[in-house]
């Protein structure tokens, strides 16, 4: 068992959730409630990582992350280190790869909040912030929870993008799924097996939690 890979994976997944969930709530609500030009394109761009092969995303990021590229150059001027083969690099890659997983469930949940409920809240004198906090968020929390769970589980499983931009560096960019690949190549089937089992359990537990909570909620509503 490669505990440093486990720690990298957990940290990556938790940080991805931490950064993406506020963005997901803001964008999900915006896409659910507002009409604007280019909304279709915007939704398509967000959904793109679902269908784009991870290697394609990884290839573009690898190019953009280089010190000669605008993004990588700006980053290295700012922080002194490049983006390729660093934890910051795989975190940025993971943020992009997980956009649909964080935004779509929240957007679906906001779409089910009736518009007149929001208007009623405003008429009762609640500010837009209070409306969001006290009326909307309590209604959309299952969506937020599934977004968190999906983002978390998907980050743990991400492979292609991280393989391309990460370089499998111990304690920095070698995540659990990369470590499994490495262990298989090193003919260490036992190591690969224990890490695979761990990932299987975590993924199942995460999804079980989401579906379990969603089921309980449906059941409670039916009462």
């Amino acid at each position, binding site marked *: 068992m490669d505990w440093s890979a486990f720690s990298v994976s957990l*940290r990556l997944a938790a*940080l991805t959730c*931490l950064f993406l969930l506020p963005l997901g709530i803001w964008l999900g609500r915006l896409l659910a409630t507002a009409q604007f030009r280019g909304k279709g394109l915007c939704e398509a761009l967000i959904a793109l990582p679902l269908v784009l092969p991870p290697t394609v995303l990884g290839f573009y990021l690898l190019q953009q992350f280089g010190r000669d590229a605008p993004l990588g150059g700006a980053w290295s001027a700012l922080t002194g280190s490049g983006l*390729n083969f*660093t934890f910051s690099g795989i975190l940025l890659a993971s943020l992009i790869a997980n956009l649909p997983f964080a935004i779509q469930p929240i957007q679906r949940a906001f779409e089910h909040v009736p518009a007149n409920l929001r208007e009623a809240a405003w008429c009762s004198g609640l500010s837009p912030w209070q409306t969001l906090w006290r009326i909307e968020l309590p209604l959309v929390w299952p969506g937020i929870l599934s977004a968190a769970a999906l983002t978390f589980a998907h980050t743990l499983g991400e492979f292609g993008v991280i393989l391309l931009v990460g370089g499998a*560096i*111990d*304690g920095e960019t070698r995540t659990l799924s990369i470590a499994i690949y490495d262990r*298989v190549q090193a*003919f260490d089937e036992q190591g690969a097996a224990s890490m695979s089992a761990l990932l299987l359990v975590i993924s199942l537990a995460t999804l079980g939690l989401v579906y379990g909570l969603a089921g309980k909620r449906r059941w409670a509503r039916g009462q």
Partner: protein
Amino acid sequence: MRALLLLCCWLLSAPVMAGAPIVAAASSLQFALEAAAAQFTQQTGHALRLNFGSSGNFRRQIAQGAPFELFLSADEGFVQALYDEGHVDNTGVMYARGRLAWVQPAGRYSLPDEQAPLAGVQEAIAALEEGQRLRIAIASPEHASYGMVAREVLQKAGLWESSEALRVQGENVSQAMQFALSGEARGGLVAYSLAVAPALVGRSEAVLIPEAWHTPLRQRMVLMPQAGEVAHEFYAWLQQTDAKEIFQTYGFSTD
């Protein structure tokens, strides 16, 4: 709330493990360098982080700024290329000469004779004409040193085209070895150092390919400009007797 704060601190703390130098090494060294690094750590108390992959892939990653401190290539071409492009400031030293071998799963097929080590490839080609597809594994001839020489050997023997439908390519020579030992394959042209590793010696049988059949695998290592003290120490240690003995155990020649 305090737990949440602690979690945030852990998340934002810079990834640790900084310090132990990262060594990028050709997959043919998978077992030999693990053994060498273990002995080095035991003798000096310095830890190392080993990354294995194809030499060509590391060559690319180094050109893109990967934070390795020492690069052990499976041939000299990649080191020379890095020097020519100015990514390293010398051409390092040759630490071992590798050998290509025909490797097949133990006890399943007849082992080719030393005089005709490619008999397994010829048998697989003959079997294909009878409708049976037995795979031949090699490492990527694009960016893995052992894949390049495997292609060279097959081309010189006139078996490159006829074996095309049978060939499976590993991303590096370790993966090619996996493929060679899988039930699907007749065998493969891979690194001899993997076939003689204790972990695999019971699962595989090997015949050496004569060195004269291909460009010699003069395995060269080079320190990166950012290499620290421990990396320099390991670089020197790898050129001494203890390391040479380990390399020889794994089928490399070091003269």
